[in-house]
């Protein structure tokens, strides 16, 4: 059986608002989209004007977040991950490749792009939501996998 999770509208909306603040801060100060896959591609394959050091600084902030969370709130981070390692490897490849090939992920298209009313981002978000939901439907309800 899949792990059940509690519906958390308040914490989720507040967390979303923080993500929005980060996106607005980045645009205000450095004029950049807060898209994680874009930031990662600037970092691991630097090109003219990609500013890899700024991308690295942003990623560093992301990596520091759990430590700050644990120290500030005194509670651990709740996570339930797959224990299927080949699946994790395949999913990682697909996520990294697809996000960059399609010009963005949940943050670049789903948050920043939709906030600019970009038609491309609306289409991309609809497509990845649809395929993700389809995959979950197939793995959970057709194949009947536990996670």
């Amino acid at each position, binding site marked *: 059986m899949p792990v059940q999770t509690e*519906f958390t509208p308040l914490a989720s909306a507040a*967390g979303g608002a923080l993500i929005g603040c980060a996106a607005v801060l980045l645009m205000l100060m*450095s004029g950049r989209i807060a898209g994680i896959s874009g930031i990662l591609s600037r970092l691991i394959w630097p090109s003219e004007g990609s500013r890899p050091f700024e991308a690295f600084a942003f990623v560093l902030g992301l990596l520091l977040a759990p430590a700050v969370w644990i120290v500030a709130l005194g509670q651990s981070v709740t996570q339930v*991950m797959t224990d299927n390692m080949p699946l994790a490897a395949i*999913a990682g490849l697909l996520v990294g*490749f*697809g996000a960059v090939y399609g010009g963005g992920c949940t943050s670049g298209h789903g948050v920043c792009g*939709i*906030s600019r009313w970009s038609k491309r981002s609306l289409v991309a978000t609809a497509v990845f939501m649809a395929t993700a939901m389809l995959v979950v439907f197939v793995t959970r309800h057709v194949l009947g996998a536990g996670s």
Partner: protein
Amino acid sequence: MILLVNVIAGLLFGFGLLLSGMANPAKVLNFLDVAGHWDASLAFVMGGAVLVTAIGYRLVFRRPKPVLDESFRVPTARQIDSQLVLGAAVFGVGWGLVGLCPGPALVSLPLASPAIVVFVPAMLIGVAAAVWLKR
């Protein structure tokens, strides 16, 4: 200065992911599982994020340029092409398989669960392959 701004933005972004529940793959998969025990929380993450960003961007774009740079760098492409659709579709498949997208994956890396230690390097290989293909 601009490096510090980036660290702070990354930290805020990561903290938002943790608070929202987006960094818990079980919650993401339950959101995607509309036919099961649907957890609608992630719609609130997206709603909160888009609301703040849409309003904030409008205010920011009234400025001629960002505070610490010469110009805003916003994507200018308008066309819905096969790269966009194919990439998004592939990304969605990977996201649906384990419930991790790039932001939550990076935030989860320091927590060093076995799956994330496998997922993140694979993701970076995927990123590099796509950048190489798109050159």
